[in-house]
């Protein structure tokens, strides 16, 4: 906490804040608002009720109208602040409304009814989170299925990516064989081919393999990444060969050397690749859109897209889903970001 204060109050010199301090903080604040403003608005809006979302002018915080239980009424009635003909204001509960005429009662004395013009009453509002948005999407739509599909694809694809890329990187960094550099260059050169170009061939392959509308159809084409092989190979080059020789002298099989020595020592690079892979797979939209066409196979990203109906869009649900979709990547990034920098730095410079 103390370090956070130090960071947030850091200044250029010791004495009065310099103009550069004001400028820096201003610039950073602007950046913060630009970057975080939309996210914050999204999160706040996801807690608004459908009615509050349609309000104009929009409110930043989620508000709901207060209601009160009135004797003799089945449901709680909405509360209004009413300007009475004599100029005084009272809080009354609305029983019904016909045209521009509203009928209200005093909650403490429900027998006496007041008839007021709707222009003379204003809703009494309070800060209220519409948490129903979050619970209802699980109940009303197969949101759980989409979430499971996304989690399954992300976790399984990441695990397979780590394993396959690490094996390729191990061979390319620790074995001497003819054509090794050619293979490596070939793998790296695939970085230059935009994914959209191979979309159709990929689709044909996946279709022929009968993997359409299967989660594996999303997983398999994505697991071999040139970035991952490059990242891990560069890192593994820094593992001393003597360690591998020592393991060989220790009767370790090549698989055991890979599993017990090289993999644990590559942990920082593996962490980086895992972060990347989680973000890629989680946010992936185009490829799942092509492979998965049945609703029950949809990932979250596809579901979000499908949720924008042709006629109406239930924004309050859509926003709640978007927030849930954002969460995993945010957590991964927030907690593992130091691995990203160290991993990339150590993989880049030997």
């Amino acid at each position, binding site marked *: 906490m103390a370090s956070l204060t130090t960071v947030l109050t850091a200044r250029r010199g010791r004495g009065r804040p310099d103009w550069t301090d004001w400028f820096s903080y201003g610039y950073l604040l602007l950046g913060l608002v630009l970057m975080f403003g939309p996210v914050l608005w999204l999160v706040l809006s996801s807690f608004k009720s459908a009615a509050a979302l349609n309000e104009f002018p929009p409110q930043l915080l989620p508000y709901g109208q207060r209601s009160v239980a009135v004797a003799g009424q089945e449901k709680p009635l909405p509360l209004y602040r009413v300007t009475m003909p004599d100029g005084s204001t009272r809080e009354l509960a609305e029983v019904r409304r016909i045209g521009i005429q509203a009928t209200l009662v005093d909650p403490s004395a429900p027998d006496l009814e007041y008839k007021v013009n709707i222009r003379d009453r204003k809703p009494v509002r309070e800060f209220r989170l519409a948490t129903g948005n979050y619970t209802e999407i699980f109940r009303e739509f197969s949101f759980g299925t989409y979430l499971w599909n996304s989690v399954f694809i992300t976790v399984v694809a990441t695990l397979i990516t780590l394993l396959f890329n690490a094996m390729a990187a191990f061979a390319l960094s620790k074995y001497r064989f003819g054509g090794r550099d050619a293979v490596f260059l070939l793998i790296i050169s695939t970085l230059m081919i935009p994914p959209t170009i191979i979309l159709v061939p990929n689709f044909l392959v996946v279709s022929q393999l009968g993997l359409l509308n299967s989660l594996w159809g999303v997983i398999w084409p994505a697991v071999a990444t040139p970035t991952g092989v490059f990242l891990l190979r560069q890192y593994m080059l820094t593992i001393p060969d003597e360690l591998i020789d020592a393991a060989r002298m*220790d009767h370790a099989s090549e698989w055991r050397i890979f599993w017990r020595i090289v993999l644990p020592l590559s942990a920082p690079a593996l962490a980086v690749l895992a972060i990347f892979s989680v973000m890629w797979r989680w946010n992936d939209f185009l490829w799942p859109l092509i492979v998965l066409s049945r609703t029950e196979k949809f990932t979250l990203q596809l579901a979000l897209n499908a949720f924008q109906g042709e006629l109406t869009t239930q924004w309050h649900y859509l926003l709640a889903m978007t927030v849930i979709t954002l969460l995993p990547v945010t957590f991964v990034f927030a907690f593992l970001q130091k691995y990203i920098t160290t991993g990339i730095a150590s993989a880049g410079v030997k």
Partner: protein
Amino acid sequence: MAGLQLKGVAKRYGATTVIHHVDLDVKDGEFVVFVGPSGCGKSTLLRMIAGLESVSDGDILIDGMRVNDVSAAQRGLAMVFQSYALYPHMTVYQNLAFGLENLRTPRATIEAKVHEAAQMLRLDALLERRPTQLSGGQRQRVAIGRAIVRDPTIFLFDEPLSNLDAELRVQMRAEITALHARLGATMIYVTHDQVEAMTMADRIVVLRAGRVEQVGTPLELYNRPGNRFVAGFIGSPQMNFLSGRIAAVHETGAHIALDAAPNAASDAALPLRGSSVTAQQPIRLGIRPEHVTLGAATAGSLHLTATIDRIEQLGAASFLYCSLGSGERLTVHTAGQVEYARGNQVTVNLPITDTHLFDASDAEAALALR
């Protein structure tokens, strides 16, 4: 137990040959040291024995079995690396146990063997530490322990002490020698330090540029170096080499005239055995600094006048760095303390029986074998 034989072993990288036809017979339980300057191929040879490098030509036999195509893991040897090569992500215990786990040894046996080795090497208190938390000497002992636990028949050491400071090196030298005495296993030890070679070895193999220059016990190499390279490599400070020629050949031996004293053909004859020399043949005469004496001329010696350039007094011994009339340099190692000062002229005596005679040609083979 196991002996080791190398038969015409060679190693080539493309067109470059780094090991030329090495023949060697290591007896069971022997402590053999490979010594030579950097890049002489001693480590490569060791790695070929270990199975970490392939053999281009020739055969390696362990216990009479050809092992050229046997993988390092299957040869049953243990190796201690220069960098120790401890697994940084494992504790000392796990480091020691890793080899046994790979052999699918029962857990109880592993535990017993690891603790036994740890006790032998005084590592008991460190078993739960990681290699990064250990000092250099402790890491070295873990590396040796990792070799010991598997009861290998042959130990291979690749410059294991080069990363230690001088004091620790002396201590570890004694520990490895004691270990050899206790285990009785065959050990092959690579070093570039001739002191290590002299103090530890049963037999020394001197290598240069991928060739074996000479094989012998430490004192054989010291007393009867086979060529000028071995003579210069073994012994510290280095042997002095003076150029000259054979003045005359008699039945008793050869008389020598040095460039440093061209007219004073030695009165003492250097006995020659088995090698033929001719008069006027150019030669190189070698003499160790500790054999040179100072002061009045003595019989049976070559006498030279030298100017002292530099003196190092160590108390128990003194080193005099002199220059001769021919521009050659001569180092003198004398016991005790000396009274000389820089610039003094002294008479140095080279006792003829302590000199070594080498051919002045490229091969520089020893001519006189006493």
